[in-house]
């Protein structure tokens, strides 16, 4: 089985290489030194020019576009639909310091004196 498989592959590879011999260039021609082929520099020039243009555009944009706004304009407060869940009973009291009127302070002091506290 293995050798049959090997023979099949050998024959397949031979078929793939069929015609190679006819295309083989003469050795003498291969041994003659030819000047190395120089590739055109144009693709490189185009690449470099494109990169330079892109860099220039980026620099111009950076110079001409101002910095982003430091804070959002007023009236753009985002509120989530579930914000009400955070409002627990009494949370307003916890967030604010109660303001005592001057009269209430006096009353408080007097009641303290009456109870014997200095």
């Amino acid at each position, binding site marked *: 089985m293995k050798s049959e498989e090997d023979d099949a592959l050998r024959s*397949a590879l031979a078929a793939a290489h*069929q015609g190679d011999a006819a295309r*083989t260039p003469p050795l003498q021609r291969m041994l003659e030194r030819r000047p190395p082929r120089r590739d055109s520099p144009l*693709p490189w020039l185009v690449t470099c020019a494109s990169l330079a243009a892109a860099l220039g555009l980026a620099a111009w944009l950076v110079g001409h576009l101002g910095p982003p706004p430091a804070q959002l304009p007023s009236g753009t407060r985002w509120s989530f639909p579930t914000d009400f869940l955070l409002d627990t009973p009494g949370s307003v009291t916890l967030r604010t310091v109660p303001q005592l009127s001057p009269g209430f302070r006096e009353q408080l002091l007097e009641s303290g004196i009456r109870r014997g506290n200095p």
Partner: protein
Amino acid sequence: MDRGDIEQQLAQLHPAAFAWALSCCRWNASEAEEVLQSAYLRVLDGTARFAERSSFKTWLFSVVRIGAAESRRRRWFRDAALGRWWEGTLAPAAVPSVDEELESRQRGARVREALGRLAARQREVLDLVFFHGLSIEDAAGVMGVALGTARVHYQRGKRRLVALLALEEAA
């Protein structure tokens, strides 16, 4: 080995070396010719030196393989750098000719297509073993890999190529 000996060896191995260069260059004849010529020039001017650690054929094939890899890298780089855009669409590697209408040539083209679907090392080891008649050990020397690695590529490549060819024949 003096220059006369080297030239004699090259003359003997020239058809096989060209077939190997074609295989390394995916049957692109002009690229294979350039690769082979540059390999010959390296061999003759002493840039690539035969240290007699393997047979001359194994060593020459490895020089060709390295040259083909360099050429492929250069080509890739050139194409990547707008070369493809500048030169227009590249010509396909294998130009079908009228002769390929013949059944035997069609089979060759089918096998080449199947080989093209293998990994490069699998293709190389199968070509070296089944067409050029090298042992797996020599093929490993040409490919610059360990014997075990070459064996793995050989087994996997063989299995895959057999399956691909069976599919081709069934289609």
